[in-house]
């Protein structure tokens, strides 16, 4: 897919809880096609401690509204700068990057989308696309407390949402892999994004259940286009760039101990 460097305009920057900001971005021209699971690299300006672009997954792409949504967790100086953006500000973005999730060829497959923390972000767009093709996604979203749960009403537009919190404040108490829906229902495909220990646990469960599983990785990266070889993941074919060969990988390709 052709990649672009675009100056996008901030339609709205919405605080989501205390730790996240939702950036609604648009452009005078039609935005290029983007696939669920792909990401963008955001240029961060005016912060001397931030040199490199920040990779952010695509939360949604709405072609009719010509809008790209980024859900950003405020972690360091780069992401905190993004939280200072206001309507009308311009954000320089390279997109679309990476490969994206593999959509099921068989529409009778029941997909389970498992997200943790800010890792839920790309699953919304994946859910939208699945729903569009006539496949209802089931979401299983986990977080430490109720404070990190986001956009639940948005996910509910596309399919049933199950929740776990470690403190038990919302949904079932525990980790996503302990949720009762996993024992109750049958799934034909798993997609997951979140903290690595969670993805490893999900991958282990999927492998045990014999269900194909794709994970979206977020290794630290610089160039975003497969040139600098910084963001490599150890796979069965050796070190490969998460930014170019990924960020989405089938668990069969990774060298994870699962």
């Amino acid at each position, binding site marked *: 897919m052709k990649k672009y460097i675009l100056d996008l305009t901030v339609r709205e920057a919405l605080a989501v809880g205390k730790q996240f900001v939702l950036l609604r971005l648009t452009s005078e021209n039609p935005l290029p096609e983007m696939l669920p699971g792909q990401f963008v690299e955001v240029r961060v300006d005016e912060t001397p401690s931030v*040199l490199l*672009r920040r990779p952010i997954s695509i939360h949604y792409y709405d072609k009719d509204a010509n809008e790209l949504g980024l859900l950003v967790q405020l972690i360091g100086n780069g992401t905190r700068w993004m939280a200072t953006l206001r309507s009308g500000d311009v954000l320089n973005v390279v997109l679309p990057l990476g490969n994206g999730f593999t959509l099921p060829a068989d529409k009778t497959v029941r997909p389970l989308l498992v997200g943790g923390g800010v890792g839920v972000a790309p699953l919304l767009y994946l859910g939208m696309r699945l729903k569009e093709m006539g496949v209802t996604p089931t979401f299983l979203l986990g977080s430490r407390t109720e404070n990190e749960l986001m956009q639940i009403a948005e996910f509910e537009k596309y399919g049933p949402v199950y929740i776990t919190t470690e403190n038990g404040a919302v949904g079932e108490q525990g980790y996503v892999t302990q949720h009762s829906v996993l024992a109750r229902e049958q799934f034909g495909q798993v997609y997951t994004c979140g903290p690595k220990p969670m993805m490893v646990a999900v991958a282990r469960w999927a492998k045990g259940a014999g269900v194909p599983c794709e994970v979206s990785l977020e290794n*630290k990266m*610089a*160039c975003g286009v497969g040139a*600098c070889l910084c*963001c490599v993941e150890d796979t069965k074919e050796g*070190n490969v760039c998460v930014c170019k060969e990924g960020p989405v990988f089938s668990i069969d390709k990774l060298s994870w101990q699962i």
Partner: protein
Amino acid sequence: MADLRTSIGKLELANPVMTASGTFGYGTEFADFVDLDRLGGVIVKGTTLYHREGNSYPRMAETPAGMLNAVGLQNKGVDYFCEHIYPTIKDYRTNMIVNVSGSAIEDYVATAERINALEAIPAIELNISCPNVKQGGMAFGVTAKGAEEVVRAVRQVYDKTLIVKLSPNVTDITEIARAAEAAGADSVSLINTLLGMAIDAERRRPLLSTVTGGMSGPAVKPIALRMVWQVAKAVKIPVVGLGGITNGTDAIEFMLAGASAIEVGTANFIDPAVTGKIIDEINAYLDRHGFASVRDIIGALEV
């Protein structure tokens, strides 16, 4: 429109702007952003005789106005390059230059010999200065004797333009530059990355798997500029300047200090289209100051 043509020995460049090895892949990764044929040259990823997996993740850490990397020369080896990558880049009109690395003199020689046979590769950049290779790399670049030996050996088998990339992690870089010149180098390029380190205080762990790594980006520019200026005065062969160049003014500064051409590295990560802009900015500078040719500003620093 000023005349932007420059040269590195026999190698003619349409303009002084090249891309630094390891920051621009094989060029094709950036083809959506930059017209590669507009560039003075593309120096492709470091190539070794045999396949190298490189270092473990994490390999990168951002630092104030810079970054550290510890990629460790990951590449599929020179045979793979010749068979699979060369056919995809040979028809570009820009100068496709291969950066050659190794861990023994025989490896450098064998790799350079293979590349010498490739018609569309008019030059190599000999990396005697990568700080990530445990054996070799560093050792050749940090002593005049080591530099001279490896350059002399490669010169025997390589008859096109031979650029030697120098390490800044030495006591006197001019001594190494003179050794490379004496051994038959057509040009020296500098600087490679500076050895650095970053720590995660909360976890009390290094940020790189290798603990130390090579630093690049705007933070190193004053050091690079100083070294280019020193080396340009010390040798007669053309100097290629790099280290923290992010815009046309930076490029001009390196040329005023004595560089005949420049390389853009880390800046490609921040703005993938930056090289095209630097060409335009150099031209605008020359027009604004009434220089007919970019060659007029090489070493034109008034001190």
